């Protein structure tokens, strides 16, 4: 493959295939192996490959994911790719499997290990695994390990001997509703991610990186890579011109139409509203987001890519915001129900053709750690295959200048990269070239 020019990184020049075989070769040699995966770099493909690889050895395997949707998704993928493998899906009592999953061959459902027979692979959420105590698996795969809090890992780590940890270090860190300062600096801080705690206690474990994003277009990969993965970097799997977004009908020259045209042309657009301090559920911004989504559908966008040509239907569009009340307000503004509207936390790991983002700092008077968190902006700006439209009030650059990172420095806490303030500046700088 011929990589387009991008910032250099250690594993940048490796082929993804090479990385996957390195990972598989490392598995029996180490107690744990970590794989960092930037957005859309084939993390799930890797998990499916590794699962089949381990299952082929005849040893039982447990897979840990973080949410029921992620578990269902993995079950579907594994069963689709390797129908001969038997898969047990463990769940809590209230779980109802989606109808499409009931027909999968070799998949059994149950709330207890005993209900599943003796499958090659058992999959459940970390929360569910914490209740399964009396058996030790020789192998485990932990998916979305950077979104998993280390106290969850503590509850299940006794259940496996060796594990492959896979996740995206650029997304949102786990959080808690209580103040965890008393543990900051401890190597087993329960609020840190499972991977940080694992690596602090086992610094010799190999860490691999998947070098190519198959999701992000050539217009987005360098921007996201530079802002959120400054030291490791990744590149797009496609090159300029491989992905195209076309609007079937002409525009009316409104700002919303022009923003969509800019996004279709360049992959990015910033719809800037007049500078003003607003409440979180900024009525004008919410209106703008809703209008953009509506116009995108009305104008009959068509996306063409290496996967062929298809219309951008409502289910291929996502709207992202920082807070739940913003999400509720956007939904209440009257969007088609098929359009996904959600917070950054819940958009993690998902993929769409076009995303419309309400900038976390839009209309704010201050830039708190929550709003500056690099993972939040990273999730919001890395869900799309074709284009991303950001809605924001003017004045974010000045707001950032007025609020340099001033979090107290805790002793013993490893410095975290990227810095949220810098990442915000970097993205904003790029967006300003696509301002409408």
């Amino acid at each position, binding site marked *: 493959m011929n990589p387009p020019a991008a910032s250099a990184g250690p594993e940048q020049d490796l082929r993804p295939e090479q990385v996957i075989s390195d990972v598989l070769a490392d598995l029996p040699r180490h*107690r*744990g192996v970590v794989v960092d995966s930037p957005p859309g770099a084939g993390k799930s493909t890797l998990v499916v490959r590794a699962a089949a690889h381990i299952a082929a050895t005849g040893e039982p395997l447990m897979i840990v994911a973080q949410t029921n949707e992620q578990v269902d998704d993995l079950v579907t993928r594994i069963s689709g790719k390797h129908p001969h493998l038997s898969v047990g899906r463990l769940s809590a009592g209230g779980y109802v499997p989606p109808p499409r999953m009931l027909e999968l061959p070799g998949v059994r459902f149950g709330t207890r290990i005993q209900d599943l027979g003796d499958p090659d692979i058992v999959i459940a959420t970390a*929360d569910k695994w*914490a*209740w399964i*105590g009396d058996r030790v698996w020789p192998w485990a795969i932990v998916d979305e390990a950077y979104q998993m809090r*280390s*106290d969850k*890992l*503590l*509850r299940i*780590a*006794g259940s496996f001997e060796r594990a492959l940890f896979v996740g995206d270090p650029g997304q949102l860190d786990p959080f*808690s*509703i*209580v*103040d*965890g300062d*008393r*543990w900051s600096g*401890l*190597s*087993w*801080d*329960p*609020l840190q991610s*499972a991977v940080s*705690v*694992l690596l602090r*206690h*086992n610094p010799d474990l190999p860490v691999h990186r998947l070098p190519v994003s198959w999701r992000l277009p050539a217009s987005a990969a360098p921007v996201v890579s530079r802002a959120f993965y400054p030291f490791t970097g990744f590149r797009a799997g496609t090159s300029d011109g491989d992905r195209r977004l076309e609007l079937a009908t002409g525009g009316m020259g409104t700002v919303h139409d022009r923003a969509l045209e800019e996004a279709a042309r360049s992959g990015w657009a910033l719809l800037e509203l007049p500078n003003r301090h607003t*409440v979180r559920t900024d009525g004008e911004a919410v209106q703008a987001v809703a209008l953009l989504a509506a116009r995108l559908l009305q104008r009959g966008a068509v996306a063409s890519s290496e996967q062929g040509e298809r219309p951008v239907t409502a289910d291929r569009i996502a709207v992202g915001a920082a807070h*739940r*009340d913003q999400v*509720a307000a956007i*939904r*209440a503004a009257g969007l088609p129900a098929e359009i996904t509207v959600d917070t950054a936390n819940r958009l993690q790991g998902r993929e769409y053709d076009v995303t419309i983002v309400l900038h976390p700092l839009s209309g704010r008077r201050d830039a708190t750690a929550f709003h500056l968190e690099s993972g939040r902006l990273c999730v919001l700006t890395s869900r799309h295959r074709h284009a991303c439209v950001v809605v924001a009030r003017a004045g974010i650059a000045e707001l950032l200048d007025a609020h340099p990172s001033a979090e107290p420095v805790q002793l013993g806490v490893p410095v975290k990269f990227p810095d949220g303030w810098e990442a915000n500046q970097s993205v904003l700088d790029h967006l300003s070239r696509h301002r409408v």
Partner: protein
Amino acid sequence: MSLLTSLARLRALEEGIAQPVATVRHCHLSARPMVFVPLKLSGEAAAPLAAMLGTERERPRLLVVTQPRNRDLRFAWAAELAGVLLPYIEGFLADTETVERRNADPYERAMDAPQLIVPNQGGVAFTRLLGRSTRFRRPDGPYPVPESVPVLGRWLTYFGERAAYPGSALMLAATEELGRHWASGQSGLEDANLAALLAWITTGPSEEAEDPLVWPPAGPATDPGFDAEVLAPAIESGKPERVAEALRTQLEPTWRLMWQAIDLLAGLPEGASAAQRWEQDRGSFSGMATHLAEGAPPQARRDGAVAAAARLARMERAQAAYDVQRAYDDPLVMAEYRLTGEAFAGEVVETDPDNTEGEGRSRKLRPLVVIKTDDPVRLPPGATLGTPQRRAQGAELVSAGEGLVTVKITKGMGRGRTAAPGAVPEVGERVCYTSLTDDFQGSPQLPEAEATPWTHGGPPQDYVPDDEDAQEEWS
């Protein structure tokens, strides 16, 4: 800051007086609280300088370290402090009740528990540091201390940790509690000044609150002007009475403010769930006393991996319960959730108390209630609901739109064929439903500390007391 609190702060600024943000008191207030105002020596982390404390407002006890750099005097002061605090704490242990537990032996729970009230978060932090610096001391070996000092250290540590536990009232910071019930027109940082916050609540903002000559800082740090002009010469003079008198002038104003704060809080009726949380406090207090009596080692310097995860789980559970309970106890707190669409209130316009679901033996009473509301309802059909008016009941949202919400009562209807009188809201009644519910979900087992897995550094080393403990700096 929520929208409602922002509004209250703006209104406070406009009207020049703090605005209530709660209609009931969300903390238990002891009939005999121990007011504790500690001071430390400037520039030192935990060198005690003085403390004023007591349970009666007319009889404060003043304890002073007349030469704070003298290590022996500091421990003598700690022993004096133990002489006041330990009898107060232990006085609550005699009167107990037996509590039956499912799957566990019954235990003895104190009928009442001690309550420490300090001026601010700084006071809590200093209490924790005092506990940290005294609990590892021993009455034998190098630098022996009076026997009561390590015991005091363990109690102070306990209270300091309990203060971080959501909803606990064993140790309160006056500014925190006042701030939970009133919104002033100043910033959160300024609210940490007890004199300023009390002025906002009672008479309106006052410049005197910022004047250290009128209202000296409420500790634990002292006013630098006082340090340089009064304290330093007094200490150098070598006359203990002079130091004590100087410090009394710094502590007495705060002492009066503390009781004023207590009076203000006592003026609010206690929230319905505060007693329940205090019951947990009493249980925790009795547990700590038993622990101490059984000769357990002092609390660890740091939480181990398992202990940290266990504490985090307990605190998260307590925080969630505290948030829900406050909303259920207080319509003004619930209003915040009504604004965000997580709750709605309105008048019942239609009921179907005899609605049933299922056939034959599995037939269940599921009354329907239609509520007219002006609130923005942002809950999806099928959402689980609770209501402050009927706490034992659970409900489910059937549909919402055009200002009308239909709710189905799904829990707490009993087995009868018809609803008990009063179980279903009547037409015309004002009700509130919310998706906040305080359903307890047990958390899964953690491994034993000895079985800490390799991902978390393996089993920790045991703590063995040694002479090194006495070598630690106490500053």
